[in-house]
């Protein structure tokens, strides 16, 4: 039999380190950013990349590198909290739904069906318009619309696990249903959830960027990668750097996270060799 699979190796290790570095940059933005991201210097308006302003300046003369470093905070924080939130909500609802069955299952799953049959972007936009733009609302809306896939996934796993013999044995031993669910059933259902979580982070970052691009996410003067892209759109003809660098940041982050997600999928797939 082959030894245990090693997760952190090769490209996955590289991607993990790169993301850790990115996260460190975001956390340490205050010390790493070369200048105040909101400091306006109208004389330097749309200055091209060069010494002292390595990624150029925007239409108000603000340093793009500093704004991107601070923007990483928003993008990563929203991506993480929204994905973790929808994973948590989805796992709990899915587990309860699958384990208890009956009317509880019906209610939860029909709610999921309703949410899933409304086109995602339409639902998100409508809710943001109703709740008002802002970063907290973006997170809440992503959680509200994003838990359904995870819930279905976990429910399916729980349904197949709850008739397994070790679960019956735990029931026979007189353990409380909540204990059985959280100690014996749910941990065994988590492998596909970890995979889904990784892709969920990528999806949430993208969603935040999209909403901020449309002006429904972060509000000026705060920057996120999406809002920087949006700002850049107005001056695209004069300042290519305003869209290229934020776009690259989003693209590279997506690739790195997807590398982790794909590695996680392979890691938990029994048919994949180590």
């Amino acid at each position, binding site marked *: 039999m082959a030894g245990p699979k090693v997760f952190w190796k090769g490209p996955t290790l590289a991607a993990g380190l790169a993301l850790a570095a990115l996260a460190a940059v975001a956390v340490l933005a205050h010390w790493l950013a070369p200048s105040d991201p909101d400091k306006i210097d109208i004389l330097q308006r749309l200055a091209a990349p060069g010494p002292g302003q390595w990624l150029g300046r925007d239409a108000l003369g603000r340093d793009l590198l500093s704004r991107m470093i601070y923007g990483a905070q928003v993008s990563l924080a929203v991506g993480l909290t929204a994905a973790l939130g929808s994973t948590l909500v989805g796992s709990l609802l899915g587990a309860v739904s699958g384990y208890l*069955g009956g009317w509880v299952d019906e209610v939860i799953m029909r709610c999921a069906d309703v949410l899933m049959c409304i086109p995602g972007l339409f639902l998100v936009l409508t809710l943001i318009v109703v709740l008002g733009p802002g970063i907290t609302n973006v997170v809440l809306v992503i959680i509200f619309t994003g838990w359904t896939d995870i819930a279905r996934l976990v429910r399916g796993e729980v349904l197949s696990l709850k*008739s*397994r*013999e*070790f679960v*019956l*044995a*735990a*029931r*026979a*031993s*007189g*353990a*409380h249903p909540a204990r059985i669910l959280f*100690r*014996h059933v749910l*941990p*065994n259902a988590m492998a596909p959830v970890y995979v889904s979580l990784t892709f969920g982070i990528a999806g949430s970052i993208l969603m935040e960027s999209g909403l901020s691009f449309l002006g429904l996410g972060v509000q000026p003067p705060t920057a996120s990668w999406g809002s920087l892209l949006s700002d850049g759109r107005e001056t695209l003809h004069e300042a290519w750097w305003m869209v290229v660098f934020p776009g690259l940041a989003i693209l590279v982050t997506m690739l790195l996270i997807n590398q982790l997600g794909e590695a996680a999928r392979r890691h938990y797939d029994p048919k994949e060799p180590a």
Partner: protein
Amino acid sequence: MSALLQVDGLSLGFGDAPDVVHGATFSLEAGQSLGLLGASGSGKSLSALAVLGLLPEACQWRGGRVLFDGQDLALLDAGARRALCGASIGLVFQEPFTALNPLLRVGDQIAEGLRLHKGLDRAAADREAAAWLERVGLAPGASRARQYPHQFSGGMRQRALLAMALACGPRLLICDEPTTALDATVQAQMLELLRRLQRDLGFALLMISHDLAVIRAVAGRAVVMEAGQVVEAGAVDSILQDPQSGAARRLMDAYAVL
């Protein structure tokens, strides 16, 4: 002497279909052994699950009573039933590869019941679990307890399951085909272990099997089930020598072919 386990006219069924267990009646005295013999689908496992209150959701209780130590199990609420059955009825399943939680250390799975029913603290439960592993022949217990199920062979897992089922000192042990998935040598060791433990600890044993030899190895009395009904009951040796029911004869004939 009143029986420890009394199953009285038990009827179970699914949906609108006819009963899959129909009027099953058998009883087991404290400290004794009873074999529940029958082909696959004869309703023997379902009867055992009914005793434990582990029937699948779709299965309906259509009649009869199950008395454990004189108490009607159907009349207990969920909490009382868990307290009674968890501590005093042990269960060993057929399939050793799915009967242990793959994510928990073997010792922790044995200790779980001890902490729940005997109120032991973590350290005491861990020591007790290790002692149990040694008692079922998995020495050294302390290091075996720290291993995960995938590090155990089928026979070792079945021993661990036995330790798990017996750790709380149950008065009744239900074994659902505990040796079917094991090869002949391991099977014989397992049955020998079961006999020895029963002699030492004095629990009653309900052995469910389609295998006459297994039943004969551990039980003096047996009931034969076919199509959900008890068709024959009596001493195992007399069933073997002079089977009265078609079901018992067919099992004997099939055995003779092998």
